[in-house]
């Protein structure tokens, strides 16, 4: 991905309406969340203009303009934009999509995922220390699900450090890790010496 400033992308300015229609066309073939910068690159338009067009499309589909509220919506999830069915119609749609809903994550897997999400990058040993149980098989499950990935291997200890994968954001329906709930209030009194436990 080339680095782009908002200005640099500008080449052939188009009328905003064209841009919205072109965006719709691209969104029809997208198979992953599309960041503004990818859209701007493909369209040869300034990021600012693309952002505005996206905002207008969101409002359009939400029925805030002249048209009706559509059966679909434009959502920003996992760092990009994609077309989703509007929640009210999720049930209607169900039988038309081949959903192989994976088995639910176990409590142990969810807790391990939470530890990794808040402490990333983190080694398996450190996760095990926090959870006070062996986490090897749970980490394997999370890797296989694509919810976490290897971040790096510590050159001294050889310990693999893990981080959350982009799929986690999509699975949670959030746009970035910043949207995770703050964990410090959950720790109540935030005792000293907490950080060096891990």
């Amino acid at each position, binding site marked *: 991905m080339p680095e782009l400033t908002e200005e640099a992308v500008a080449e052939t300015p188009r009328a905003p309406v064209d841009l919205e229609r072109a965006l719709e066309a691209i969104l029809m073939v997208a198979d992953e969340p599309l960041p503004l910068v990818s859209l701007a690159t493909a369209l040869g338009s300034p990021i600012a203009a693309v952002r505005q067009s996206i905002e207008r499309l969101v409002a359009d589909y939400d029925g805030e303009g002249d048209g009706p509220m559509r059966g679909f919506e434009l959502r920003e999830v996992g760092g990009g934009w994609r077309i*989703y069915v509007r929640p009210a119609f999720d049930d209607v749609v169900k039988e038309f999509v081949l959903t192989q809903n994976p088995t639910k994550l176990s409590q142990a897997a969810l807790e391990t995922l939470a530890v990794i999400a808040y402490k990333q990058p983190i080694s398996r040993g450190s996760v095990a220390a926090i959870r006070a149980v062996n986490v090897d098989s749970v980490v394997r499950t999370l890797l296989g699900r694509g919810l976490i990935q290897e971040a790096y291997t510590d050159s001294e200890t050889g310990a*693999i450090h893990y981080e959350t994968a982009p799929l986690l954001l999509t699975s949670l329906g959030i746009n970035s890790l910043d949207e995770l709930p703050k964990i410090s209030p959950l720790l109540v009194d935030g005792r000293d010496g907490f950080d060096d*436990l891990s």
Partner: protein
Amino acid sequence: MTDPVAEAAAVEGAVGFRLTLSNFSGPFDLLLSLIAKHELDITEIALSRVTDEFLSYLRGVDTEDELDQASEFLLVAATLLDLKVAGLLPQGELVDAEDVALLEARDLLFARLLQYRAFKEAAAWFAHGIEAESTRHVRAVRLEEKYRKQSPDLVWTLSLGDFAALAALAFAPREIPTVGFDHLHAPLVSIREQAAHVVALLRGGGPVTFRQLIAGADQRGVIVARFLAVLELYKYAAVTFEQLEPLGELTLTWSAQHWTDDSLASLGADYDA
């Protein structure tokens, strides 16, 4: 939520201990459940009140097989017992270093419990989020044929040998072995990383002696790994070596014809097993 017992068995593939302790994922999980059952907050009193119950869960553990999995429980149990015994002593009088150590152990236990509880609550948020999102439907349709044809042609650069090496790499266990080093508390050394170091030293340069190769390596593991790396590179015909007399100076020369970073990635795969 699914049946927790079946879930624990299925997900962890665990035998024995987890099942004996029904469905608690670790000692903190059990402690928190016990404290919650008595509708208590996390305090010293709460801990002393649930200690007996906690210990009763441990009585199911009898075989050596389960001991490994039980060690974390036993560690917590020991701390709890110490605290309970100390509770019989007059309060507020710190007599010796042992008491101080016990207070530290207690605070550590509290801190870890609180931390565990925080992550447990975060996990509930994750579960809810994933559950809610799993009912959503995203547009994900096959690319129309006319656009698929538009994809630029693939540039294939791998030779048959490269491809096989890649397969070997893919099938090799991804982790550097940790067993056997843990109890020595020695840092783990990756042969592949040491090989990278060796390659960097040798490649494009003149002959290097093994003595120079291990200069600055202050750990036996690193020296061993570099030696193994040299042997691996020799197997790949990437280096040749010369030793004029037994136990004499070993001189290495870079001789690889086709060397890529991929070759390095597949190096030492035998040692991964």
